[in-house]
């Protein structure tokens, strides 16, 4: 028999056996039920959240446009920006529950994206929530292992393994056949689900980027399921009895999907320590009031600005200036505030990025972490996408406040007089915030180590198949 035919025959036999014992049908049923519930609730929640955000954004925009106020009062009044979700966040909620959704635009204060769900919830939320990604990451691998743990031990226990080897079946072909057989069953279960989940992406016209993201999402999980098919069969090949194989498979699953991800993330967090909120707030406040480096205190900086402004306009006093110095001083304060914030908050951001990078490396030891990272990345629910929103919102905020301060400076109003008011005509001119989503390619690049880790795991499975084949040959020479 040709090698390929041998693998195919074994694979087909495995599929038939699985469906005959109804194990595969049961597993398919459980997977589909859970996926159905996860996708339905995900869609409902997403629709509601998007509706709320859209209504709130319209309300704030309307209030902004209709006001009649001093530009600085308007800057204090400010506005709110809301983080939009990508379509794929229905399937993978990722970090959304732990990240804020609202960004406050306000004078003098650099806010973060606030109000996450986890802030108000009890510890129950830490058990996780039902989503398609959770089903794919945790449940399907377990089901795959339950399908595959006795793939080889069954043959061994019924003495058919010796017969197969005597008949000339190569051990490597046997293991490969078993892996492909199990994987084919998995495909029969998950492919219809992926196709159904892909329909809204195509029908609702979310753009080519969404299609590409969904394609990557599907590919990542298909590779992941293949890995677990391989791991399951390999554990079986290395076990003497089905009982031991079952315990071994469950142990591997617990290790990879439950224990290592938690322990690794905590260890990484401990090794790249973040400051407390108090320390960060204090550093920012002191950085602003006392100044960074040789910049001088806020009073000194203000005096320096006044001197240079007077010099530039060749006048002696602030009252003689053709501009309202209040506006200039406030903008100067804003610029410095931004500098201080970017310095200290930037340190935090770099540390978190370092942690993310380390997590990418850890994914070489754990395919669960790899697929989790990759999945969040393409679903747009990871830290990088959150950061991208924060950056864009912050840029918008800085420009927003600058326009208001400059309007005050050029309003012709006198220094320290607050009578000047701008009307709706001016406020309507202020551009509304538009979030530019990251392209899919960037999301792949941000999780390049995790993508590579998935590939490396495939290679490892291939190598282990050959090693395991040699072991089988040694047992049954």
């Amino acid at each position, binding site marked *: 028999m040709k090698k390929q035919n041998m693998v195919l025959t074994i694979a087909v036999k495995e599929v038939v056996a699985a469906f005959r014992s109804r194990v595969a049908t049961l597993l398919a049923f459980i997977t589909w039920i859970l996926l159905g519930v996860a996708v339905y*609730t995900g869609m409902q*929640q997403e629709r509601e959240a998007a509706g709320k955000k859209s209504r709130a954004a319209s309300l704030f925009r309307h209030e902004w446009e209709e006001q009649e106020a001093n530009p600085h009062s308007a800057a204090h009044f400010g506005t709110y920006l809301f983080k939009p979700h990508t379509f794929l966040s229905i399937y993978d909620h990722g970090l959304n529950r732990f990240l804020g959704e609202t960004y406050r635009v306000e004078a003098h204060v650099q806010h973060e994206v606030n109000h996450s769900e986890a802030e108000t919830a009890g510890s129950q939320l830490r*058990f996780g929530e039902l989503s398609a990604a959770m089903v794919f990451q945790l449940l399907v691998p377990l089901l795959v292992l339950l399908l595959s743990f006795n793939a080889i031990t069954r043959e061994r226990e019924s003495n058919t393994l010796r017969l197969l080897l005597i008949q000339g079946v190569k051990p490597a072909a046997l293991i490969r056949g078993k892996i492909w057989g199990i994987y084919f069953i998995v495909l029969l279960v998950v492919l219809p689900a992926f196709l159904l989940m892909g329909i809204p992406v195509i029908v609702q016209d979310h753009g080519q980027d969404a299609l590409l993201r969904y394609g990557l999402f599907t590919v990542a999980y298909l590779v992941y399921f293949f890995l677990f098919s391989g791991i399951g069969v390999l554990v079986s090949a290395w076990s003497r009895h089905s009982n031991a194989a079952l315990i071994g498979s469950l142990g591997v699953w617990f290790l990879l999907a439950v224990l290592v991800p938690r322990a690794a*993330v905590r260890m990484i967090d401990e090794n790249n320590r973040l400051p*407390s909120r108090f320390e960060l707030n204090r550093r920012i406040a002191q950085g602003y009031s006392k100044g960074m480096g040789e910049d001088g205190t806020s009073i000194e900086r203000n005096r320096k600005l006044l001197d240079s402004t007077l010099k530039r306009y060749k006048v002696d006093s602030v009252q003689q200036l053709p501009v309202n110095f209040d506006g200039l001083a406030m903008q100067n304060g804003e610029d410095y505030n931004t500098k201080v914030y970017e310095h200290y908050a930037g340190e935090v951001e770099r540390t978190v990025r370092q942690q993310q990078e380390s997590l990418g490396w850890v994914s070489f030891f754990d395919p669960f972490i790899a697929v989790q990272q990759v999945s969040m990345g393409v679903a747009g629910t990871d830290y990088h996408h959150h950061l991208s929103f924060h950056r864009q919102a912050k840029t918008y905020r800085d420009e927003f406040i600058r326009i208001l301060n400059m309007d005050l400076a050029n309003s012709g109003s006198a220094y320290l007089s607050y009578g000047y008011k701008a009307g709706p005509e001016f406020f309507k001119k202020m551009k509304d915030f538009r979030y530019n989503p990251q392209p899919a390619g960037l999301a792949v690049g941000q999780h390049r180590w995790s993508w590579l880790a998935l590939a490396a795991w495939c290679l490892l499975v291939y190598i282990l198949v050959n090693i395991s084949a040699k072991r089988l040959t040694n047992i049954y020479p």
Partner: protein
Amino acid sequence: MKLLKTIFIFEWRQLCRQGWLLSGLCLFLAVSLLSVYSGNRTVGKRWVQADSVREAYHKDFEAALKRFTDTSTSKGKAEAKTAGMAAVINFRLPQHAVKYPEPLAALSLGLTDIRPWHEQVRYVKNYNDATEMPVNNPMTLFAGNFDLAFVIIYFLPLLVLAYCYSLYSSEKEAGTLAMLAVQAGSVARVVRLKLLFRFLVLAALLLVVNGLGFVLAEKRAAPGVPQMLLWCLFSLLYLLFWLGIAYFIVAFRQGATATGMYLAACWMLVLVILPSLANTIVQQRHSLPLKDEIAAYRRHQSEEIWNTPARILSDSFNRYNPQYASTADPAKDTLHLSTRYVAGYYDLLERRMERVIAPYEREIEDRNRQLAALSAWNPASVAQQWLNTLAGTELPAYDQFSRQADQFQRSWKTFLYDFHIPGKQLQAADLERFPVFRYQPPELPVRGMLYQAFMLFCGLCVLFATGSFVFNGKDQAS
């Protein structure tokens, strides 16, 4: 008694012979110690951060005190004049409310990493709670805690699974079942005695792990005896729950593989599917309000109140705060930006804000209550809540902290307003009379916990009785 001794000796020999099982028990011990280490690191970091708050405050306090007396330079003289102004003290020397980790916090981190544990207090209430949220990598929050509670909740059931899945089938496969049945009178009795031995082994291991946790946990005060006893009681009950599940499934006398698969499915159901389903149901029914209405209201109220004539605002302040009425000076108070005008602005804003925040908070409370009600049916969720409660890291503890911090803020305001409103200066000695925040943890709901423990115990009795019924039924059938 003889049978008990025989089975216990046999089980002991089996345990010593089975290398993989011993490795499993050692792994449990090792992971437990690692989790205690990880919890210690987190709590240790929190202590360092809390200490840094205290140190910073002492530094600020010393500096504030020095300003009263240091008149050696012209700058010093100028500062000494304003050193006792309540507004200056409030700005330069804000107070701090800190929730220090409780003795068992390292063993069950709960909400330690996500809920504010520190609040900076000034005489104007801060509505932006984001300013106190711990700085975190969201991935760490998402991954969850790695502490002893996690090992007990997630790993212990798997150990039960590995140890008990072949409770019945191993005898059957070894061909010793018939012999044992003759000696013991029934197979069920043999299985029960074997289960008892395994319970004792696992319970001993669990108690050792708990004991090590109590000793090694990062703490600055010894944990209370009731807390430790309840911790042991709940972890043992949780162990019994999983043994009950194992016994119930073993009672159906399936092969080891099928039993193992059913137990794995139970693990998945209890620890992943049911809790996540409960979360999803609650999110579906009570989606989180956006707070946008509160934000919009606050902005409008701020503007409206700020533009209110000074006389009305100062009158409003006097009406709501009659204790300061005696020092009122209508000529001064009715000026724009007068002390009473500004105090009146904040006072009125606070009162109005409380009105709109209360329904929002009720909504959140409702949501959490619904989730707690749904989770009450899941022993894993209940066990997690128990352990967190004992460690002072569950929601009620943080809510209590938040309430006490609010109360402290009011005390601070009252203290400073006694100087600020009449325009009196504080003396250096007054700084020693500052109100002090001391967090009082919520009273341990021992009665409620024992009641829940009793209910779980009753449920376990039913589970074991049903298991025995199934076993006996099968016994008679065979």
